[in-house]
Structures are given as structure tokens and as C-alpha cells.
């Protein structure tokens, strides 16, 4: 079989990549800061006893703009990749995507409702608007996922096949509802809606960041505890049961982690496609399918990928900014096609 990277080397490599992405993400932008200044300002901000002389501007840019944006990118990437691993494990299919359980389309619907209704009501107080949008997106994602899960359940058993089909149907339903809102929206609202659907890390602020950070932390701590159970689940549901895994509980946890994680990510940054699909797949190619390695490695790879995609989004048409969803899809879709053409390993 193809040689696989030893986990230690993989983690060192991905950890380094993630640090590099973070550093660049803090340094580069409309006002590019020298890399060393970025490092010094960052360490000074972190409370290290360094001289902060001459770094006031750098520290302000870092603290107010770049740091929240970078943290948002890290959390979104990590949580999307982890949710991708969870869904590929749940559906026992390496081509599964977190969107399959309806969380993304539900969040999009929630956001559309918030944007269009908000504007129809003559505009909400401006300080409230972003929170309302995030909250509606998060709740929309949770609601649709809960419905998909509910539809998949019968006699105390959850059928992932039924969940998959219910997810497809509800995604179509939610998309047409979003379409209806789009049709009803006026031009300004339409623009907001469109940009939201393409995703962006722009406008990150600490206030909107902390719910996502908490959820990302929770998911990142919880899922690796279930790595062995996820491995067993890949054998089949009854095989996992015979190995002593409480399969129904595991499925519930996977769906919950995905709904909370992706819901929070989408609520904070809009729809960012292909990360959840491509990252676990890519990591599996180099590290193998063992979830004990796959989960933490995907976390690092997802966080790095989103930061690099955001750098491209910021730099490609500077000073204008591309929606990050476009960048990830541009990177992700050809890669996905390549995987399809190449066939499963």
C-alpha cells in the first residue's frame, strides 16, 4: 500500500502550515506589515514583555482588524473540516459533505429570512442587525438539521439512508424558499443576500466571534474522544454495535456536533463551500483513514486552508475583496473532480 506519513511528521507539518497561515493572515492586507513587525506586535499584544515602541499602528491593525479576522478563519476552517470528518464517518462515505444533513441550506434560509424581513420592516437598529442575521442563520441550520434527523428516526433507530434523502429534499425545499426571498428582495437587500451566500471573513469582530470560538472548542475537544468509535462505525452499524459502541448515541453526537459547528460557522462567515468535503479527503490521502489522526489533522488543515483562501480573497483584487466562498469553490471543485476522475483509492 502507499506509504503514509507518520502522524508525528504530519502534525509538525500541518502545525507549521497553520502557524504560517496565521502569521501571513495577520501581516498581509491593504496595509501590509513587515513580517517581523507583525510577530513583535503580536507577541507584545499577547502580553510578552517586549518593547512595543514604533508598533502602535501595527498593534491597532492587528488587534482591531486582523486578529479577529484570523481567529474567525481558524475557527471556521477547523469546525467545517471536523464536521466534514464527522459526516463522512456517519454516512461511511468519503464523498459526504456537512451540507448533507441540511445545516447549510437551513442557515442560508434563516439568513434570507433575517435579511429580507429586516429590510421589509424598514431596517432594524443597525447595532442589532448583524446579531439578528447570525442568530437566524444559526437557528435555521439547527432547525433543518433537527428535522432531517427526526425524519430519519423510526422505532428508536436512525436510518442514515433516510437521513440522506431527507437532507436532499429539505435542502431543495430550503433553496427554493431562499429563491423566493431573493425574488421578493429589493436591489440593496439582494446584494446583501448574495454576498452573504458567498461567505466572507470580512467585518469580523470579537463580539460575534466568541459563540463560534466556544462551539469550535467544544467540537474540537469532543469529536476526538469518539475517534475509535468512528473507526468502528466505518465497519458498519451492526459491527460497531457488536464491538460495544452505542451507535445511536454516536450518530446523535455526530449530527449535533455538525449542526452546532457548521451552524455557528455559517452564522459567523456565511456559506463557505468545499472545505468540509475536501479537507478530510485530502488528509485521508496522506494520513490514512484512522480518525485518531484524521480528526486533529483535518482541524489543522481546514484552519490553514480557510486562512490561505482568505488571503487570496483579500489580495487577488486588492483593494476590492473577493467573497471567500468563491475562492474555496475555485480551489475545491476542480480538486473534487480530480478525485472523482482518479477514482477511489
Amino acid at each position: 500500500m502507499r506509504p503514509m506519513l507518520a502522524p508525528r511528521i504530519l502534525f509538525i507539518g500541518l502545525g507549521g502550515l497553520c502557524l504560517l497561515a496565521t502569521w501571513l493572515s495577520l501581516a498581509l492586507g491593504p496595509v501590509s506589515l513587515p513580517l517581523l513587525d507583525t510577530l513583535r506586535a503580536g507577541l507584545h499584544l499577547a502580553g510578552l514583555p517586549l518593547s512595543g515602541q514604533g508598533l502602535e499602528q501595527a498593534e491597532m491593525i492587528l488587534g482591531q482588524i486582523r486578529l479577529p479576522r484570523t481567529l474567525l478563519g481558524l475557527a471556521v476552517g477547523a469546525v467545517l473540516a471536523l464536521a466534514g470528518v464527522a459526516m463522512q464517518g456517519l454516512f461511511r462515505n468519503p464523498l459526504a459533505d456537512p451540507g448533507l444533513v441540511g445545516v447549510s441550506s437551513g442557515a442560508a434560509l434563516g439568513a434570507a429570512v433575517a435579511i429580507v424581513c429586516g429590510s421589509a420592516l424598514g431596517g432594524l437598529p443597525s447595532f442589532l442587525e448583524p446579531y439578528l442575521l447570525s442568530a437566524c442563520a444559526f437557528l435555521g441550520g439547527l432547525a433543518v438539521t433537527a428535522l432531517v434527523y427526526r425524519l430519519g428516526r423510526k422505532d428508536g433507530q436512525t436510518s442514515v439512508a433516510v437521513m440522506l434523502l431527507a437532507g436532499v429534499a429539505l435542502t431543495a425545499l430550503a433553496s427554493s424558499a431562499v429563491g423566493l426571498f431573493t425574488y421578493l428582495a429589493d436591489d440593496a437587500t439582494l446584494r446583501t443576500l448574495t454576498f452573504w451566500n458567498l461567505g466572507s471573513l470580512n467585518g469580523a469582530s470579537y463580539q460575534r466571534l466568541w459563540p463560534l470560538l466556544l462551539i469550535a472548542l467544544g467540537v474540537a475537544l469532543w469529536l476526538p474522544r469518539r475517534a475509535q468509535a468512528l473507526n468502528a462505525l466505518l465497519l458498519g452499524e451492526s459491527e460497531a454495535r457488536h464491538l460495544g459502541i452505542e451507535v445511536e448515541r454516536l450518530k446523535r453526537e455526530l449530527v449535533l456536533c455538525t449542526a452546532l459547528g457548521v451552524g455557528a460557522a455559517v452564522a459567523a462567515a456565511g456559506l463557505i463551500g468545499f472545505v468540509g468535503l475536501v479537507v478530510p479527503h485530502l488528509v485521508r490521502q496522506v494520513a490514512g483513514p484512522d480518525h485518531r489522526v484524521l480528526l486533529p489533522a483535518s482541524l489543522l488543515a481546514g484552519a490553514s486552508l480557510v486562512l490561505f483562501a482568505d488571503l487570496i480573497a483579500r489580495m487577488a483584487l486588492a483593494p476590492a475583496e473577493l467573497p471567500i466562498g468563491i475562492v474555496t469553490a475555485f480551489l475545491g471543485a476542480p480538486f473534487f473532480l480530480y478525485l472523482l476522475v482518479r477514482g477511489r483509492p
Partner: protein
Amino acid sequence: MLRVDNLQVVRGRETVLSGVSLALQAGEVLGVLGPNGAGKSTLLGALCGELTAAEGDVFLHERPLAQWSGPERARRLAVLPQVSTLGFAFRVEDVVGMGRLPHGSGLVRDAEIITAALQAADAAHLRDRSYLALSGGERQRVHLARVLAQLWPGDGGVTLLLDEPTSALDPLHQHTTLQAVRDFADRGAAVLVILHDLNLAARYCDRILLLQNGRPYALDTPQRVLQPEGVKAVFGLDVLVQPHPERGHPLIIAR
């Protein structure tokens, strides 16, 4: 070790299995034979709790199966299904290692057991291969090694249920596999194995349960069960039965 009285399984309105009573003893290999659709896999499903019995509780060590916690049960009862669908490129060693999941016996002990189980299933040379690169028969042996590892070494009151473990195997490995199962039972495990080959069953089983249309036709030693009348009645097959020239167990020859 595993016991059921008057088991009945209902699917929809149809009774697919009824009247089965058996007690699986330590150290014995019990073969289950019968034509397609006779209820063999249904019986196995009910015995491992995968299917709910309409009547007749299953007892593992005199305690109802449903009352065991997952890992506790998995340390005493392992099941090899007919087909396994694993679509990910795990190494063979890792697949077998999953059998150690309910134990927490430590990496060193687990590695020893994985080696022993792979050897028993004649799959030691596959250890570092990718599961997806294996043939059907090799995969079947790897899964056998996995369930053997789950109960290794086979003493201490463990029960193993096997659904057609030889269906994809070449003639040599049909024998090596059943010999490994036989050895496992000789160390004290109770084994129930669904088979299609009457001669394999005659050679390796202590008792045979013959199923017909979801009902037990006979449950006794191979010598008593595998008679021309019974085989004709259950399988509709005309056979001669003669003792094996070297081993003495019944040899079933189609006429």
C-alpha cells in the same frame, strides 16, 4: 453460555422463525444448516440482539442479553456478519485491532493478540496491506481475525457467532478457517456457525441444528442429523452418507 427457549421472530405479519430452543455450551461448535431462506441468519440476528424476538428471551451467561452494557457484552459475544462493507483504506492490522476496542488492554497486549488472531486466520502475511487491496476471501479472513481478536484467547466463557465464514474461501482456507474456529472452541469458547457445506459441518461441528422453513428440523450430532432422509426432507437432495475413510465422520455424497 448463550441460551434461548422457544425463540420466535416475526417480520411484519409473517413468522420467520419459531420454536427454536438451544443452549450453546462452552467448548462446542454448533453448526446451523438449512436451505436459503430457512431462517439461519434470522436466528443469528436474534441471538446477538440485532433482531428483536417476539418470544423467547436470549440469555448470555444467564442474564438477558438486553441487560448487558455494550462493552461488557462485546467482551463476551462477537459476531461475524455475512458481508462487511468497509470502504476505507485501513491497514489490515488496524481492522483486526478494532476487535480490541471493548477491552482497553493496552497497546502491547493488543499487538500480541492481533498477531495471534491473524495467524489463526492465516492472514499474518496481510498485516501491513490496505484492506481495500484485498480479495473477497482475504477480507473474510481478516474479519474472522477481528472477531477472534475480540474474544482472544477464547477461554473465560466467550461466545462467537459466525455467519457463513467460509463463503468466499478457497478449499484450503475453508478447512484452515474452520480448524481455527475448532481450536478456538477447544480453548473453551462456544461457537455457533452457519454453514452451507454439509461435509464441512460434518467434520468440524459437535452438533448440528437443521432448519426448515423457520422451524428446527433436528438438533443433534452430525451422525444423527446428516442422514439421507433428513437431507432429502430439508434440502430436497438425494444423497448417500458414508463414513469418512480416515476420520469416520459422515461424508455426504450427492447421488
